[in-house]
C-alpha cells in the first residue's frame, strides 16, 4: 500500500477550561483520495479533531503528518503556508455576511497573495478569473456580486465550497457541512463535495450527523465516542450492534433521503 496521505498518531486534546478531554489517544491513517467520514454524537470531539488537523486548535499531545510533513512541528508561520493546501468548510458557513460573494470567494486566495495588496482588497486578475470559474462550478455565477447574507443556506455553503476551491486544496476538512441544511439541499451540497473528491482528487475528511449520509458518501468511516476512536472501517461494516456502540443504546437510526 502507498504511503498514507494523512497520519494521526496518539492525538490527545485537553481543553484547559473545564478540564475537558475532547480527544483521547486517537490514531488513524487516511490514503490519498479517500472520502473519510467522521461520525459521533455531538460533543464526541469531531470538530476538535478536524481543527487539530489544520491546527486551528493546538493538540495537547500526539503527532500529525500530512503528505509526510509533521505539521505538529511546524512554526506558526510555516503552518500558515501549509494551511493553503487545506480547505475547510463549516456548519454555519462562516462567510463575511456584509461582503459580496466574490469577496468571500477571493478570501480563499489570501495565503497566496502579498499582505499589503490583500489589505487594500486587490487580487490579481488570475485570481478573479479563478473565482468566477469556481462560482460557475457551484452554480452561483450570477450571484457573484450579491451580498452573502442575501443567499439561502444551501447557496451560502456552496460559496464556502467555492472559497475552499480557491485554495486549490489537496485536503478538505468539512465540519458538519450540511447540519444546518434541509435534506434535499444537503444532498446537493454533498454532491459538490463528492465532485471535489472524485474529479480533483481532493482527500476529504467530513464530519456528518446522519449515518445514512455517511454511508452514501463515505468511502470509509471513523467513529468517535467521548473523544475515543470506537470504529474505523467500511460503511457496510456498521451493523446494529456497532451503531448502538457509537450512538448509545437508546439511539434509533434515521434516514435522510
Amino acid at each position, binding site marked *: 500500500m502507498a504511503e498514507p496521505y494523512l497520519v494521526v498518531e496518539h492525538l490527545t486534546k485537553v481543553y484547559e477550561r473545564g478540564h475537558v478531554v475532547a480527544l483521547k489517544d486517537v490514531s488513524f491513517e487516511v490514503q490519498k483520495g479517500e472520502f473519510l467520514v467522521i461520525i459521533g454524537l455531538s460533543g464526541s470531539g469531531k470538530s476538535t479533531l478536524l*481543527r487539530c488537523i*489544520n491546527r*486551528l486548535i493546538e493538540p495537547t499531545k500526539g503527532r500529525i503528518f500530512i503528505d509526510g510533513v509533521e505539521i505538529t512541528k511546524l512554526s506558526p508561520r510555516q503552518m*500558515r*503556508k*501549509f*494551511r*493553503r493546501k*487545506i*480547505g*475547510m468548510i*463549516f456548519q*454555519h458557513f*462562516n*462567510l*463575511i*455576511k*456584509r*461582503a459580496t460573494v466574490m469577496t468571500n470567494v477571493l*478570501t*480563499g*486566495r*489570501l*495565503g*497566496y497573495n502579498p*499582505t499589503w495588496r*490583500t*489589505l487594500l482588497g486587490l487580487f490579481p486578475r488570475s485570481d478573479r478569473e479563478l473565482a468566477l470559474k469556481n462560482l460557475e462550478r457551484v452554480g452561483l455565477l450570477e450571484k457573484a456580486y450579491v451580498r452573502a447574507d442575501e443567499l439561502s443556506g444551501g447557496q451560502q455553503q456552496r460559496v*464556502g465550497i467555492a*472559497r475552499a476551491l*480557491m*485554495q486549490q486544496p489537496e485536503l478538505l*476538512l468539512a465540519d458538519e457541512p450540511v447540519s444546518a441544511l434541509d435534506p434535499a439541499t444537503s444532498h446537493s451540497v454533498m454532491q459538490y463535495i463528492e465532485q471535489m473528491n472524485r474529479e480533483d482528487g481532493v482527500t476529504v475528511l467530513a464530519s456528518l450527523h446522519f449515518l445514512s449520509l455517511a454511508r452514501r458518501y463515505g468511502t470509509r468511516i471513523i467513529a468517535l465516542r467521548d473523544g475515543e476512536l470506537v470504529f474505523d472501517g467500511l460503511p457496510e461494516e456498521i451493523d446494529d450492534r456497532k451503531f448502538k456502540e457509537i450512538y448509545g443504546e437508546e439511539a434509533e437510526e434515521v434516514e435522510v433521503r
Partner: protein
Amino acid sequence: MPPGYPKVYPKGKPRRMSLDAVADFFYFGFRNLRKQLSIAVLDMGAVAVLWLLMNYVIIRFSTGQIGYTLVPWWIFGVGVVEAAALWESFGRSFGHRVERLELRRTDGREPTLKQRVLYWLLWHVSVLPLFPLLLVPSPHERGSGLELRPFTMEGRVPRPWWRTSTGIYVAWLMGAALTAAISVTISWEDLVRLFTRAGTTAKFWRSFFSPDTSIILKTIRELVVTVFMAMTATSFAVLVAVPLSFLAARNLMRGVVGRFIYTVIRVTMSIIRSIEPVVWAIFFLVWVGAKLAPFAGVLALFVHSVSDLTKLYAERLESIDPGLIEAIAATGANRLQILRYAVIPQIVNPYISFTLYRWDINIRMATVVGMVGGGGIGQALFFYLTGNLWKQAGTVMLFIIALVWGIDYLSAKLRAKLA
C-alpha cells in the same frame, strides 16, 4: 489547606503534643475567631444602622433637626452589642445568614431554651474580650453545648420573604432610608412653593413666544461653534478609542500581559467615565485658562468620549463571531489579513453607529459644558439666564431645542440605515 483536612477541630481527646497539634490549634483557632467576629460585626452593624436610621427619622419628623440618637452614645453602644447577642443566641441572625451557619446542639438537634440562655450569657464572656475565642470550641459554645453548623434546609418550610426576619429587616431599612432621603431633600414649604409660585415662571414661558430677533445671527454662530466642538471632540476621540478598544477587548487580550493591559485600560476608562463632562470642563478650564473657552470644552468632551467609545467599541469586539476568524485563518491568512477580512467587516458598522450616537450625545453635552464656561451656545445661555435676560435666553433655548431635535433625528436615521 490540604484536601481531606477536617473543617472543624477533631472531637475526642486532644491529640498528643506535637508541632502538628500546635499548628492545628492556631489554624482552627483563627478560623473560629474569624467566624465569630464576622458574625458579631455583621450583626452589630446591622443593628446599629437600623437604630440610627430609626432615630434619625423620629428626630427629623418630631423636631425638624438632624440627629441620630435619642439616647446617650454609651447606651447606644451597649444596646447594639446586647441586641446582637440576643439575636445570635435566640434566632438566626443576619451574620448567621451571611456565613450560612446556624446554632445547633452538638447532636444536631434544636437548642433548648436553657441552652440558648447559657449561650447568650457566655457570649459576653467570649465574644466581647475576643481572645478566649482562640480556644476551640469557644467558651460560649462549650458551656452551652451548642455549636455553629452549616445551614441545613431539610424539613424547613420556606417562608415568603416578607415573613423572614431578613426580609422584614431589609424592607424596614429601605423604608427608613427612603423616608430619610425624602425628608432631607424635600420640605413641606418646598411643595407649597411648587404650586403657589408657578406664576413667576410666566415671563420665562412668554419669552419663548417672543424671541429676540436681534441676537439670531449671534446665536447661530454660537450654535455652529457648539456643533464644531462636538465634532472635534468626537473625531479625536475616535482616533484614540479605536486602537484602545482592541486593547480593551477581553477575547483579544490573552495571556498574563494581555490581561494586565486589558484590566488597566478598562479600569482607567471606567474611572474617567464616572466623572461628568462638566467636572472635566472645569478641570480643563483651570488647566488651559478661561480665555480659550471652547478648547477646554472640547477637551472635556474628548476625554469623556474616549472612555465611553472605548467601552462601547470593546464590547462590540468581544461579541464578534469567532467562526469567521477561524474560516479566514484556515485559508492560510496572517494576522493582518484576519483583521481585515474577519474582524473589521464585523465591526465597521457598529463602530460608525456608536460614533454617531456619541456625536449626538456630545452636542447635548457641549451645551451643558458651555454653561460652566466651556464655550459655545451653553455659555451664551448661561450669560443670558444669570443676567435675567429672559427674552434672549428663550431665543437661545429655541435654537438648542431645534438643533438637538434635528441631530437626534439625523443620527437615528443614519443609524437605522447602518443596522
